[in-house]
């Protein structure tokens, strides 16, 4: 497909800790078009953040490494770049918004200078022009430009996240990776920040990879969704496929069954039993099989392949020819 702007092919990432190998991401494949928002959904340890760091090439040196796969942004093969080449792209082509606004800003540098730094690194402009741009960016995210000389600790959590966003948008990157951008925020502030991200994204026609565990955030922000479990994508499709579709991966059903809903009084939730498998010792066959309510014999032996119907893909034996005729 030629309209793909960003794609990850068969990406696998490992962490090496002492003598153990943690298989954090196991062969995920994703793609998105320019201007789209793709939601990457999963619970703690599903490998969402690791995938994002792999795209930024910011995996911890020595312990984290990409085992296989390729990542393409535009027509650039990210994984084949040298470190200096990659450095030029970070902040310019690909930028990231981090989860915890309390720790992701440097406490001893003013917020203005932290935003300015991105411009210094990527734009050849006069100091005055850059300063003006910083003021413009701050106003853009709803912070008065006079506060540029203040330090992060003088801002609330929500305000700091706005600063992080301003920093990410400074060079108008083509791909924005937002790693749980609102998880650390209160609901009313989350709503403000989400709305702002949506507006800015549309305005700048940026593509966004939104990492979250919150299906509500996904429903209100994303065009497409990929659901991750234990380092793999188990289901993928448009928001309509995921939220309104008839057939789902059992894990997706479990996720939806676990959340209490505002608009209807539910008596009992239907959670998934058990917990995430140990990433140093993944089960045979389907990773979800030990917790799956509809686990079959084949699930314990063979990893399922994607079954595609239109834009909707599910990796489950229930719907494959090998698994069940019941699909």
């Amino acid at each position, binding site marked *: 497909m030629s309209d793909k702007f960003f794609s990850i092919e068969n990406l696998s990432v490992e962490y090496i800790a002492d003598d153990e190998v943690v298989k954090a991401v196991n062969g995920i494949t994703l793609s998105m078009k320019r201007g789209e928002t793709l939601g990457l959904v999963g619970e703690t340890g599903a490998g969402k953040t690791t995938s994002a760091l792999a795209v930024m090439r910011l995996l911890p040196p020595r312990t984290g490494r990409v085992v296989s796969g390729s990542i393409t942004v535009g027509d650039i093969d990210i994984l084949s770049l040298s470190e200096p080449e990659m450095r030029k792209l970070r902040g310019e082509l690909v930028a990231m918004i981090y989860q915890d606004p309390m720790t992701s800003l440097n406490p001893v540098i003013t917020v203005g200078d932290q935003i300015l730094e991105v411009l210094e690194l990527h734009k050849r402009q006069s100091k005055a022009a850059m300063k003006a741009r910083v003021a413009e960016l701050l106003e853009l995210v709803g912070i008065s430009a006079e506060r540029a000389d203040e330090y992060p600790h003088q801002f609330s959590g929500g305000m700091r996240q706005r600063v992080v966003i301003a920093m990410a948008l400074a060079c108008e990157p083509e791909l924005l990776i937002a790693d749980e951008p609102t998880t650390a925020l209160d609901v009313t502030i989350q*709503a*403000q920040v989400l709305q702002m991200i949506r507006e800015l994204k549309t305005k700048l026609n940026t593509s966004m990879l939104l990492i979250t565990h919150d299906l*509500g955030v996904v429903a209100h922000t994303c065009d497409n969704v990929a659901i991750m479990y234990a380092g793999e994508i188990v289901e993928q499709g448009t928001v309509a496929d995921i939220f309104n579709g008839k057939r789902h991966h059992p894990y997706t059903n479990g996720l939806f069954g*676990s959340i209490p*809903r505002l608009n209807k009084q539910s008596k009992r*939730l239907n*959670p998934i039993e058990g917990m995430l498998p140990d990433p140093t010792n993944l089960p045979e066959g389907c990773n979800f099989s030990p917790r799956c309510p509809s686990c079959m014999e084949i699930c314990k032996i063979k990893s399922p392949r994607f079954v595609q119907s239109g834009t909707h893909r599910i990796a489950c034996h229930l719907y494959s020819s090998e698994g069940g005729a019941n699909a």
Partner: protein
Amino acid sequence: MNRPLIQTVNLKKYFNTPRGKLHAVDNINLSINRGQTLGVVGESGCGKSTLGRVLLRLVEATGGQVLYNGEDILQYNAKQVKKMRAKMQMIFQDPYASLNPRMTVSEIIAEPIRILGTITDSRELNRKVFRLMSTVGLAGRLVNAYPHELDGGRRQRIGVARALAVDPEFIVCDEPVSALDVSIQAQILNLLMDLQDEMGLTYMFITHDLSVVRHISNNIAVMYLGQCVELCSAEELFRNPLHPYTRALLAAIPEPDLNHRMGEIIKGELTSPIAPPAGCRFANRCKHCADECLRQELSFSEVTPGHFVMCKRYSDDI
């Protein structure tokens, strides 16, 4: 049974800070009936955790009363407080920080019983620990495991077992599921609800998550900057929210539903709870804010039976 199990009367807790008095809990009047759950919602810094702690005398109140079965527990002496601990327990937010890493699962669960001294026979105590573990769904083989060997969900189950160990009547649940993943969160919520049905427990459930609170509560209190701004049944709160802040909270929640549209988003952020000005504390973010909101003290008035609101627009004198 109409008499409430626990009731607060003008309960206050102020903290001294270099910049003035921090109004963490300001004139709270609540009551919870036996066997019911009161949900307390609010954003960070609204004083909901302090409220729970004042109720259990983990933090000493600045003023007011906490009536438990009609007795003011704030007047209790040390001995009476210790006895009270057997009736009132707490489940904590952080499943990692709330368990002593140097104690095994069985030691943690048995600790409250040991302190109270109700069961002295060690065999009997072991039996009790096993019963508690199976009650909360912990496998017996984990008795001598250390907390750091377990995941968040199991740790939180230990926290629940510890709270149940002394057969309490009332439990303050302080954000017991907010540190957990959704699938685990649902397991713990189900557990808490089952335990309530089974044993007739009374909960105060503190959370920032409105969907969770709706799911588990009979009544809901909404807190903002140390004050309770709205109190009514869960049903009523979601059907007919009155306080502008409650409405804003509800509007801000993204539902996992494509047909759901989010409401109007309020501007601004929480102001400081330190030495708050007179008048309505929400005034600066409120679109209905009128001059008198900034001046007059507010009262907590009953708009319809059982539905209390602290807002000028619904107070009797307008």
